[in-house]
């Protein structure tokens, strides 16, 4: 598989969130503001990239009977690393993300990529695949957070954008169901552009 296609595929045509519909739960929870969504996206990218890399390096030695357990240990370790670093260096954001950093462990994208890709491919390819899938996830999160923060709080990254023009914040945007609706709209737009994704 070509490396560039390997990289670009998860960003759009095979996006893990809007095509495979994975990782929705954290997309609902951390997209109220852009900053936590951004950090969450980067955290997941780090975890998918390095769990893919590590598992790909280990792929010839892992006993197939316990491979899922080994995957979980690797992923959990990386997630704890991320969590500890956030607590030490980005305390405010880590408070906003609260349990959702720990829940990256259960994010289907991470284990899905390890199981489907890293175990059968060379380390560099697996690493690129992990980065691309993480970024595909991050992109959707940031997109959802953009609309929710803009219309829910009138700000972007905490900076006052439209509130000064007399915009009254729509707190409906801050509720989780709104994230689901925005993801739905993104999927709709995406499928109307990529007609081959439409189910008959």
């Amino acid at each position, binding site marked *: 598989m070509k490396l560039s296609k390997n990289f670009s595929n998860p960003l759009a045509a095979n996006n893990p969130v809007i095509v495979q519909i994975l990782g929705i739960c954290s997309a609902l929870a951390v997209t109220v503001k852009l900053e936590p969504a951004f950090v969450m996206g980067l955290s997941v990218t780090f975890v998918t990239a390095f769990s893919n890399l590590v598992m790909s390096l280990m792929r010839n030695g892992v006993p197939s009977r316990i491979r899922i357990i080994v995957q979980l*240990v690797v992923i959990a370790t990386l997630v704890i690393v991320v969590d500890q670093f956030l607590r*030490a260096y980005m305390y405010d954001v880590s408070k906003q993300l609260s349990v959702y950093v720990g829940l990256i462990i259960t994010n289907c994208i991470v284990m899905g990529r390890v199981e489907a890709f890293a175990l059968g491919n060379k380390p560099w390819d697996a690493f690129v695949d992990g980065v691309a899938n993480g970024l595909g996830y991050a992109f959707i999160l940031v997109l959802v957070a953009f609309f929710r923060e803009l219309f829910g709080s009138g700000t972007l990254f905490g900076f006052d954008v439209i509130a000064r023009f007399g915009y009254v914040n729509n707190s409906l945007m801050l509720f989780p169901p709104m994230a689901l609706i925005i993801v739905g709209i993104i999927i709709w737009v995406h499928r109307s552009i990529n007609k081959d994704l439409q189910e008959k």
Partner: protein
Amino acid sequence: MAINKNSNAYIIIYTVVMVVIVGALLAFLATSLKPKQDANVLNEQKVSIMKAFGEADASFDEVVTMGNLVGGEFVAVDGSDKDGVQAIFSILGDRKALAEAQDNLPIFQLEKEGVVKYVLPIVGKGLWGDIWGYVALQQSEDNVVITGIVMDHAGETPGLGAEIATAKVQDEFRGKALYNAEGEFAVRMQKGGAQNEHQVDAITGGTKTCDGVNAMLATSIGKYESFLRTVEAAVEASCECGECGAEEAANVESVKTEEE
């Protein structure tokens, strides 16, 4: 090399080696980042306390006198007393212990231009989880007045209960006197709008959280009530000679010396 990767021996050795490596790695990481994380938590507590005092720009370590309320008496803890300071901040960080504490209650004192303010930690339950914060109090002639409050929450509904963490709601509490003419604790968030000078408008759609705030204020401040009332009496007495600030400072000094 022919190793049977599905033999039990291989699997057990593989697992043991993996767990030892991962365990060592995480233990190392946790230990090396711990001081930084603790400093973050401590700093956040100090910033919240300064916010409650309304002195967000001042440095906690320079202006605040830490102390405990032991049997209704203010016992100052010197900033250089590491164990004492740590005991105060560790109970602030442990909401369950703070809610259960009946004696040895943490309290912070700040004196500025002759006016003494106290900050008390408050802790309670909202609709979905814990709510907590700090309230700053100051004695007036015959009452105790809230001069500032900060509140935070674990998971109240955004836009509804979560509004207690906003400046808009917290500013409403400023200037409210704690006790009514009958001497009862009267500050509360009132559904349908404030009915009297002690009350604050409740948040529409956030009634359960507001009930939690009311319970939190009554319980947490209630524990300090005897102290607040004695201070109140002392102020009344000392104000007649017009030296309330000096008197208070002298009191604290004498407590300190007794400690030593």
